[in-house]
């Protein structure tokens, strides 16, 4: 213990003798460690933020897309082939015990006009259960009700962004008349803001109308009973995969798909979205951290360089120490201690820099950027490892010197 203290004291003194040089050398490590911490923290912060957005889509939600068209080998995207129907949605609710709520959605773009203002957005026909499936509360007014669907009422529920674009701030949107593709509709509700989805699309840029009104007034008689997407929620989080299995089985049966044939629909769970996002972010974080680690290695090379200069400059000192009885190990430890002290002190300052920069990025982006203890621990260990790795060669060079030659060195 006392030996260790002596070694550290000696190393600190050696470094303090050349303050500017030591500081500049440490700067490489400070920046390297700072960059590693920022990249780990920001990567995690971005991931957390995306995971939260995914959960924001709705609790325990599953989404059924209709399959893709296939014309002469050219395949369309999801929903290009109209295979899902209102009847499918009703059957899922009726026959799948793991499913809690089901809603179907059919959308198209439309021009909205309110007074002097107009706005183009996606208008969706849906049913009352949609707000439950999406776990989407209203800010004011009410959502589409059963009697609106039954009587195909011309009523509309606006997303937050749409309301902002059609009405002045503070203006009461509920009760106002708007025109959708020139058809008059009455605003009955305003949805709470939900923010952007994991793909960055604004979820609040939407208008919902009863699907019956959608079919008759907006869509015309094309493809009656066909829907784009069926959203559903499982009874509990644990039943999500069970619900997925049930829905797939039911739809294969209803669509008369032979065993072994390709499904004409796709069921996606939020877990899959989450896993996908997690994977993407993981790759990003590894990439960014690797780049940061490169700067740490450059910092380490800086240490090695300066230690080599220092060993040469202090050849005579090494000779004196050897003459009075320093063994190879003693000299090795002395120079290793200087390299490690530089890298660890640099690592500590770099950690502070990293925490500061991460917090700043958190403030700018609005992400919650977590500073994990393990990131700090990792950074400190890593910086010590850099010191050991890059300090070894110069220290070994010092310890292998011939004392006679070293004493003669001018």
């Amino acid at each position, binding site marked *: 213990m*006392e*030996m260790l203290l*002596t070694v550290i004291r000696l190393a600190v*003194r050696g470094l303090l*003798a050349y303050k500017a040089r030591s500081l500049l050398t440490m700067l490489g490590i400070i920046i390297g460690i700072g960059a590693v911490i920022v990249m780990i923290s920001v990567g995690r912060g971005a991931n957390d933020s995306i995971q939260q957005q995914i959960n924001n889509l709705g609790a325990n939600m599953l989404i059924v897309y209709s399959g893709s068209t296939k014309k002469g080998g050219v395949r369309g995207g999801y929903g290009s082939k109209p295979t899902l129907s209102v009847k499918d949605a009703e059957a899922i609710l009726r026959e799948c015990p793991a499913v809690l709520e089901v809603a179907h959605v059919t959308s198209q773009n439309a021009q909205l006009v309110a007074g002097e203002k107009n706005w183009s957005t996606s208008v969706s026909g849906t049913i009352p259960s949609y707000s439950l499936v999406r776990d989407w509360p209203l800010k004011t007014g009410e959502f589409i009700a059963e009697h609106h669907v039954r009587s195909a009422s011309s009523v509309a529920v606006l997303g937050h962004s749409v309301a902002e674009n059609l009405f002045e701030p503070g203006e009461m949107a509920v009760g106002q008349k708007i025109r959708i593709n020139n058809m008059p509709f009455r605003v009955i509700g305003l949805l709470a803001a939900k923010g952007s989805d994991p793909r960055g699309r604004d979820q609040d840029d939407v208008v919902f109308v009863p699907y019956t009104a959608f079919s008759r007034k907006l869509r015309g008689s094309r493809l009656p009973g066909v829907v784009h997407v069926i959203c559903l929620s499982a009874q509990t989080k644990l039943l999500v995969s069970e619900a997925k299995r049930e829905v797939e089985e039911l739809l294969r049966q209803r669509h008369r798909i032979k065993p072994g044939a390709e499904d004409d629909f796709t069921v996606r769970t939020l877990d899959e979205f989450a896993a996908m996002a997690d994977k993407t972010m993981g790759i990003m974080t590894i990439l960014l951290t690797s780049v940061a680690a490169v700067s740490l290695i450059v910092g380490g090379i800086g240490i090695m360089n300066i230690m080599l200069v220092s060993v040469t400059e202090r050849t*005579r*000192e090494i*000779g*004196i*120490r*050897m*003459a*009075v*009885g*320093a*063994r*190879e*190990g*003693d000299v090795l430890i002395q120079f290793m201690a200087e390299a490690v002290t530089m890298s660890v002190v640099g690592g500590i300052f770099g950690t502070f820099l990293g925490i500061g920069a991460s917090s700043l990025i958190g403030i700018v982006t609005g992400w919650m950027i977590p500073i994990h203890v393990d990131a700090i621990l990792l950074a400190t260990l890593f910086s010590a490892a850099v010191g050991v790795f890059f300090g070894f060669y110069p220290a070994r060079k010092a310890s292998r010197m011939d*004392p*006679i030659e070293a*004493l003669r060195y001018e």
Partner: protein
Amino acid sequence: MGIPVIRFTGIKKIYPMEGETVEALRGVDIVINKGESIAIMGPSGSGKSTMMHIAGLLDTPTGGVYELEGKDVSSLTRDKRALMRNQRIGFVFQGFNLLARCSALENVELPMLYRRPGVPERRKRAMQSLGLVEMENRAFHLPRQLSGGQQQRVAIARALVNDPALILADEPTGNLDTRTGRGIMDLLGSLHEKGITVIIVTHDPEVGRSVRRRIILRDGLIERDEVG
């Protein structure tokens, strides 16, 4: 006869040099007893430096046997030689060789850094050693704040601090004026009274005259070994 501290039997040192070999020592036999103070003299190239390096365990002989205090040390490993230097041998150099950034006291403590007694013990013994060379009132001065003679005294204190059997001094007065040099020689001369063997390598005849025994080397062999 006294107790032999150093016994060289047929010591040889051959250096390879650009394809040829240089014989620096060609079979040297010497016995140096405890408490003796001797000078090793000779022109440059006579092998006196090589002899000092071997006697001081900074180098190993190519042939022959070197016994230090009765123990064969001719082929010790680097680390064993370092330990032996630390415990049994003190060096005094022409250029003093003090660490410039350390105080006189810390310079004297240096050999104990590798022997690991505790800090208070280290400090006490370093102070005692500085006392022996009458430098205790300069303990906290840096080498550059001391005169040449004072620096050499600190170097002698450093050589003495681990109670060595042998002190090897390489031209200890070479960088000093005559009067200061004489003071240093008096100090080294007084050490043999404490039972410490002192070997001085020099080509200064006055230094040679101030000790009792002189070994004169020429071309790697002992030319004369004179007493008185």
